[in-house]
């Protein structure tokens, strides 16, 4: 039987570790909502800040449309909250 090289052993060890990491959690099942859940979660797994920025801008625009210029009061309140 062919002896594994040091590099092969390292790759195998990395693969084993990755397998442990990935299989650590049971998969999520939400019935008929599962595909929607998986689709939504995919946006938050890698580089979620892209989605966060878009969502935050959308909410701010909605705030401006609903409350008009008086939405600045929220900024005043938040600024005094630190």
């Amino acid at each position: 039987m062919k002896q594994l090289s040091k590099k092969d052993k390292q790759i195998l060890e990395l693969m084993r570790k990755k397998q442990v990491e990935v299989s650590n959690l049971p998969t999520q099942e939400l019935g008929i909502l599962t595909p929607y859940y998986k689709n939504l979660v995919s946006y938050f797994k890698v580089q979620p800040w892209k989605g966060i920025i878009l969502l935050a801008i959308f909410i701010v625009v909605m705030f401006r449309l609903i409350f008009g210029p008086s939405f600045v009061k929220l900024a005043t309140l938040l600024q005094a909250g630190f």
Partner: protein
Amino acid sequence: MALSTGTEVAVPSTLIFGFKQVFVFLKLCWGCLNKPYETYRKLSLYSFSHQLIFILFIMVLYFLAASTIKEGLADGKLNIVVASFKATLVTLFTFLVTATTLYLLGKLFTGKGSFFTFLTLWSFTLLPTLAWFLVTAAFYVLLPPPRTTSISGQVFSAFFIAFSIGCLIWKLILYYLTLRFSLRLGTIKITAVSLIVGPLLVIYALLFYKVPFI
């Protein structure tokens, strides 16, 4: 090839270890922002508890800065130290009470995992909190409130509110991942825990803070 002059000073191994830990911490912070799912999985599987010292350090620095802004240097340095010490103690108490409540509730919903792992993951949810408070404190000095309804006032308000919402969403993602990875809860159970803890936190925040440091 460089020749030895015989005057090199050996770098202490503790210093190298310290720099390495700072690098690991920065990498974890970036991971929490860029790849939160993968980073939290690593945090739950391997021991990163010693990284909490950096979060505590930034928190103490923030409270020192915030107390200086609120109290003012003219009122004396002792007031600043006392105020920041009080704020740090209150925050640590709130942090531990919130963590314990969440952990016990998670356990009630058949969650599996150690409290120490939970505490490590929960500590990293303080990153968006710290980011928000540090930026808000800086803006309080640069552009003190109140905001006006002028164009520049509205533009800044829009930017600031968007930043605040962004931090909140980031916080919620890390909160979800904490319960998911440290207690292995599913989405339905996490929602149930949140429905119990959420109102309690809102009542607590409204009673004691404008914006709670959680």
